[in-house]
């Protein structure tokens, strides 16, 4: 049973298909992220859920009801806007109270609820301020409080942390997660920041050019990307072209011998291995896959060292090594990884 469900939803703007047969389901009390590059259709998908856009094809279900034609003001869906959209002519209190006033809630009740939600977002006693007297982070909190005060079943957040600088972003990420746990509302969160999506989400839908590339938990998305786009968009990775002719043995032209993998299927594929899952060192042993390599270059980055290592004749791999590993450019070394650390992406036409 889904709280929000999209079934084969299509939305076109002129010749552009912004949302291309998207199907996904969001469960109750889940923190669900739409992750993708800008212009990928994630915001349009969110706006369809909010009711600002009507799908051209497909079905949107909110709970049990088909909601395609329900206008936004009749949906129990809150929204935090990318550029906040706080009412400039109202005080903080009136901004937050707006939804309750529209629902004809009594005055005392409104005061109580607004005060409580101001406390929830960490802005007690800010009620009388005007919007332009607040900092970016504070405005963000007001935006969240305004959307939450009506206790909507679903809260949509459209890159709400986008305009904030890094430090406040990180604070707000934790804050949002705390608020979500505290009130137990379903959050649908749109972002292009993979780090943000990985830290906060229960589930992520990776979207590219209007299509859902993969849906899964942060760990699934990161460790078991199903497409090259997902592997590349979320974190760094090494791609090795090759194929599986024998189960669990991936043959790559650039490598002197086959790579042992977990996959049992046969066919063409691309092996993806994250730089931090590759070990490096002259005395490396005991791993499923081991190759001779040569250090091409390395950059010290504090917590780790980014190494480029040449394997075989024409393959360079990115490796994130521990800074204690001794490295010298041009020196022979060994690299290796366990088969559980890599994943093979099946190519569609094979």
């Amino acid at each position, binding site marked *: 049973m889904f709280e929000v469900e999209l079934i084969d939803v299509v939305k076109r703007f002129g010749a552009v298909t912004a949302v291309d047969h998207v199907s996904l389901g969001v469960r109750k009390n889940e923190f669900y992220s739409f992750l993708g590059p800008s212009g990928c259709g994630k915001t349009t998908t969110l706006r369809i859920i*909010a*009711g*600002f856009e009507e799908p051209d094809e497909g079905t949107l279900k909110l709970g049990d009801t088909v909601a395609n034609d329900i206008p936004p003001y009749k949906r129990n869906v*809150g929204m935090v806007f990318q*550029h906040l*959209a706080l009412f400039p002519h109202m005080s903080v209190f009136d901004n937050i109270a*707006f*939804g309750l006033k*529209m629902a004809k809630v009594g005055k005392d009740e409104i005061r109580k609820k607004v005060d409580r939600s101001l406390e929830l977002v960490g802005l007690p006693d800010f009620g009388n301020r005007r919007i332009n007297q607040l900092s970016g982070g504070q405005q963000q909190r007001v935006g969240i409080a305004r959307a939450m005060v009506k206790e909507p079943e679903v809260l949509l957040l459209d890159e709400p942390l986008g305009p904030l600088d890094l430090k406040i972003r990180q604070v707000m990420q934790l804050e949002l997660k705390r608020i979500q746990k505290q009130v137990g509302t379903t959050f649908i969160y749109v972002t292009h920041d993979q780090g943000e999506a990985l830290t906060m989400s229960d589930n992520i839908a990776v979207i590219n050019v209007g299509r859902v590339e993969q849906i899964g938990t942060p760990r699934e998305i990161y460790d078991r990307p199903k497409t090259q786009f997902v592997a590349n968009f979320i974190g760094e990775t090494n791609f090795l072209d090759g194929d599986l002719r024998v189960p669990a043995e991936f043959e790559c032209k650039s490598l002197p011998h086959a790579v042992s993998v977990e996959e049992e299927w046969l066919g063409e594929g691309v092996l993806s291995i994250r730089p931090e899952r590759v070990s490096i060192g002259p005395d490396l042993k005991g791993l499923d896959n081991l190759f001779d390599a040569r250090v091409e270059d390395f950059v010290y980055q504090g917590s780790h060292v980014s190494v480029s290592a040449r394997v075989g004749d024409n393959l360079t791999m990115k490796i994130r090594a521990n800074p204690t590993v001794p490295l010298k450019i041009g020196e022979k070394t060994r690299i290796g990884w366990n088969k559980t650390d890599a994943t093979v992406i099946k190519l569609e036409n094979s």
Partner: protein
Amino acid sequence: MVYLAIFFFAPFAIVVLYSFGMIDILRQFRFEATLRYYVDFFTSVAPQVFGRSLLLAFATTAACLLLGYPMSYYIAVKSGRRKETLMLLVIIPFWVSFLLRTYALMTILDVNGIINVTLLSLGLISQPLNLMYNMQAVLLGLIYNYLPFMILPLYASMEKLDQSLLEAAGSLGAGPTRAFLHVTLPLTMSGIGAGSILVFVPAVGEFIIPQLLGGTESFMIGNLVWTLFLKARNLWFGSAVSIILIALVILIIGLYMKYITKGEEMAI
């Protein structure tokens, strides 16, 4: 400041002095310091003319607002790529002299004008209609000439209006009507205020339009002042009438601004 001093404050001061009975500033300066001309005001036809002018100006402002608001809203928010073209159409009449535009209106409303000729030839009327030389014709002329002054400031205030505010209102449970009342209207109040003043102030003192389109019963303050100064040569009474007009307009604008700003604050 020098410019203002020469072309505004000095003439204004002279008018004030005249209204209190100054006689001739250049040759033999004499000053009676009398309120006679202000007392005269209330015994003359002036109050009646004032009432009519205010009524016409209010009606013009209201009509321009009712017509201009949806027009500006459409142009600013809904017209998309035709926005520039539509704004140009609003401004184009300014390229033609004010006088010419009013004469053009005469050729439409005249006994032998376009409307009458068309209706007659269609057989819808047997006698030409009297469309000119009455209050309605003056009102029409005023609305026609002053509508752009309403549209321009309204357009400016609406173009600034962030559409996501309306979406926010929608997601908070406000239907189109309530979103309009609580968000659009208060945020375009400045445009309404500016437009209303830009229409009301010149309309109340208008004298060309009633001169050309109106009859004797649609005589306005402007005509009165004009007649007093240039025909009757009664500079003193004319000055008094002008001063009363200025005072009244300032009073009305003051009250109006107070109401508008209050409305902005109390919008929710």
